[in-house]
């Protein structure tokens, strides 16, 4: 499969932008604006200048005023008004600000960074990644060409008989179960993962047939409910992920409402249609590292070459959990921080239980170094990583790579309205099994959007590494000297 960056605009009639561009009835259809605007805001629909400009592409009056192309000044009829879009205030939140949402949409459309003035690096949460910045040298210590920069990471650092897997990007995809997101969403994401030579993840709800073409780029989860886990599914893949906990609901189990357990979901999960399904917390067969080792051995007996990833949340003793997982035979220790995404979780858990990922990465990295095993384990972080800069910061704090989840949903035009679970499911057609709503996303469109976002992230990662004179993302691991924190001297 091959794909290139192709411009893939919003599915909706009006994309939301930072500015609002209005064309008044004075417009005489002279086309001055469509010719002069270099951003493609004004365009002709047939012979007429469109009355609804693509204002999400507008860079704003302040940035444009001094230029010869400024439509407001250029228009002979004075028919055009440009102003900040008041709707932006109703969009987004502290972590995913309106600008982060819009810049992610822009990247998914174009495969490139948005215009200057649109924030694409940090949110407004006032801590963690949002307070960390890179400390770039004045000029790169060595000049590195774009194609010399390696963004790939190794997933098996134990050097044992299991698969040697290198992924071309320093991230793979988070698990989203069959039934929690639409089939088209799953396939779009899986395709994009395969195109980029990285991995997707089935989540805990079983391994649907339509994902079989992606076996070599798929991780399957063994979670506490053991839903859909069969010898056949375990043998299908190269990486098995044990989900001990999920950052968004650490220490809590899952609950799939009866209405969501459709015929297909029930078959996949080997359950009865219409009955509520609980994923307990924890694995009631694991009360120690030794018990956990028994689980790992069990997988290795079925699929000896599989890599084992252990997905854990971030309690106070996360360092002990990580080292225990390593000694039990894990190749990947995956830390899922408390601010991560989910289809549904109690607000109290998302906000209050377990520590944010920014703290956990540093703590675990340092501990594994002290214990002398850091180079034998792949440390993956997730839970609140929204942008290419978050990826880079997580790696500089000590992770080898990250897991992407919500950002890919935003690429598919999630507005983070948080209503994934209400009624028929996601109104944007992402997290739903409702046939009508799920039809809102076409696979080709979805694949291209996720592909484009990854392309843009990769470009930005390369740009940042070049500024540090680094030839590989692996050189950045644990380089906290490349970072500074706005609250510290």
């Amino acid at each position, binding site marked *: 499969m091959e794909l290139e960056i192709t411009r893939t605009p919003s599915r909706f009639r009006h994309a939301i932008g930072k500015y609002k561009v209005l064309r008044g009835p004075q417009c005489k259809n002279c086309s001055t604006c469509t010719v002069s605007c270099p951003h493609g805001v004004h365009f002709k629909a047939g012979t007429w200048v469109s009355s609804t400009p693509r204002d999400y592409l507008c860079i704003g009056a302040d940035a444009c005023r001094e230029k010869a192309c400024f439509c407001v000044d250029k228009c002979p009829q004075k028919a055009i008004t440009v102003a900040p879009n008041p709707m932006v205030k109703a969009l987004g939140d502290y972590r995913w600000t309106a600008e982060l949402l819009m810049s992610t949409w822009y990247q998914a459309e174009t495969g490139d960074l948005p215009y200057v003035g649109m924030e694409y690096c940090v949110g407004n949460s006032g801590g963690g990644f949002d307070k960390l910045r890179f400390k770039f040298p004045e000029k790169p210590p060595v000049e590195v060409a774009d194609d010399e920069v390696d963004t790939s990471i190794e997933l098996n650092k134990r050097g044992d008989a299991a698969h040697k897997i290198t992924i071309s990007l320093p991230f793979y995809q988070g698990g989203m179960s069959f039934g929690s997101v639409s089939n088209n969403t799953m396939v779009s994401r899986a395709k994009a993962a395969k195109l980029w030579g990285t991995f997707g993840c089935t989540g805990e709800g079983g391994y649907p047939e339509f994902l079989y073409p992606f076996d070599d780029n798929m991780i399957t989860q063994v979670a506490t409910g053991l839903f859909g886990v069969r010898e056949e599914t375990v043998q299908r893949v190269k990486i098995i992920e044990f989900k001990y906990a999920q950052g968004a609901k650490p220490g809590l189990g899952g609950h799939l409402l009866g209405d969501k357990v459709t015929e297909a979901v029930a078959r996949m999960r080997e359950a009865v249609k219409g009955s509520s399904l609980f994923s307990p917390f924890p694995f009631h067969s694991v009360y120690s590292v030794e018990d956990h080792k028994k689980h790992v051995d069990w997988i290795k007996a079925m699929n000896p070459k599989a890599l084992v990833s252990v997905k854990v949340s971030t309690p106070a003793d996360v360092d002990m959990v990580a080292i225990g997982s390593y000694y039990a035979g894990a190749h990947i220790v995956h830390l899922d921080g*408390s601010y991560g995404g989910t289809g549904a979780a109690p607000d*109290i858990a998302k906000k209050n239980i377990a520590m944010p990922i920014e703290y956990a990465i540093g703590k675990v990295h340092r501990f594994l170094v002290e214990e002398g095993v850091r180079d034998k384990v792949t440390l993956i972080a997730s839970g609140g990583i929204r942008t290419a800069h978050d990826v880079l910061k997580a790696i500089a704090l000590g992770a080898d790579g990250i897991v992407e989840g919500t950002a890919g949903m935003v690429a598919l035009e999630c507005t983070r309205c948080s209503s994934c679970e209400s009624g028929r499911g996601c109104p944007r057609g992402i997290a739903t099994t409702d046939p009508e709503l799920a039809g809102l996303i076409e696979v080709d469109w979805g694949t291209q959007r996720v592909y484009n976002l990854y392309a843009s992230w990769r470009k930005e990662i390369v740009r940042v590494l070049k500024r540090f004179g680094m030839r590989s993302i692996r050189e950045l691991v644990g380089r906290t000297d490349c970072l500074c924190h706005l609250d510290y001297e």
Partner: protein
Amino acid sequence: MPKKYHITPKAIAPRFIPVGRSGIIDWEEDCLKCTTCVKKRCLYDVYKSRSYDSSTMADSIDFQCKNCFSCIQNCPRGVLSKTINPEFLKMGDDYWKPEILLTTWFQAETGRIPVSGAGYRGPFSGPGFDSMWTDMSEIVRPTRDGIHGREYISTGIDIGRKIGRLELDETGLTLLNDIPQLVEIPVPVVFNVLPFGKLGKNVTLAMAEAAKRIGTMVYITKADYDSSLEHYKAHLIPLLATSDADPSAKIIENARMVELLYSEDAMDCAKRLKEAHPQMVVSIRVPMDAQAKAITTRLAHAGAEAIHLHADYKGNELEGDKPRFVKDVMRDIHLHLVAESIRDEVTLIVSGGIAMAEHLPKAIICGADGAAIDLPLLISLECRMCKRCTQGKSCPVEIDKMDPEFGAQRIVNLMSAWWSQLIEVMGAMGIRDVRRVRGEAGRAMFFEDLERETFGAMFGKK
């Protein structure tokens, strides 16, 4: 085995359209009158069920809209738009934020735990209770699965003086201690006197009825007490000045617990009451000011059964240029009593600034045995924290005219949701008894500590 404690909620709609976060603006004049209008396709039917309330000038859409932006982005002429509701932003104050009101209303209406999709939306951390996280367990320590009823998690506490050890005579068969009276409540919450908004008898009755239904207690002042509350006697805690604490007063008769406002003679007064009513637990209410630690320590050594430390309604110390937050004061006092080897003997109740479900386990982790809550109860009665009542003006949601049954059910619902969330938090920590959460600061993570250990080690001084 005793019957499992449970709070049963019953959905009860608000009397007024609540204030919503954002509003839809609908410019009719450019409308094409499409036959398949985007409004008809609203997944939540907010346009179909749209209603207006002329008395509060409220549009139901502001509250019901789930912010998916689909209608706005799909309307052919783009005549729909959306913006933040200025009324929403105006609600509450810097501590009692509009989001707190919204989530409290939801819980009072449904009795359910607020659940949402996507990740956390708020700030990284914040002042007060937002600068701590509670712990969870995995692999190396088991969690508890309490919320789906598979493991019993106890949320009960005992209020009163506890003895440090049992003393037996030389035969080893006869107990020499007097076993002190304890008041056991099934949730670590009592209902405090409202700092404002006590709009008439109905509010008091609703609080008393709710306290009775969930098995806890409510403070009652002498001024608010009358014969209509006789029925709730076992659930009332008379709150008295020492000068009013006449052992033969009607309000004290048959009470399980009484609380005295602190004064120099509070301990003597407590002893007098105790002599007259040995079955009664006497608590002393101490203002959380600069003297609070010294007074609490002195009272604990002098034999006080329970001490209620109260901060202001935003959870700040009552005096001082730089008042500390209730969680920090509580930790300080708790640890001081531990150092004095007296902590286990006395019960500490804390109040002030307990606004959300998570504040309850957090306050207990910081050293309280239980908490007294006030404004969340008022908010569950639809209060918007406009504080007009403090200026003698009318209440926009007519709390004074509320049916006490409505109010009681709303409070029960709120408590049901809080109780479930307490169990969630304890289950994640792997603790099965709320008595063991007290002072368990090792099972919490504090912002300052995490910052120092991680970023401090990387970047030096703040």
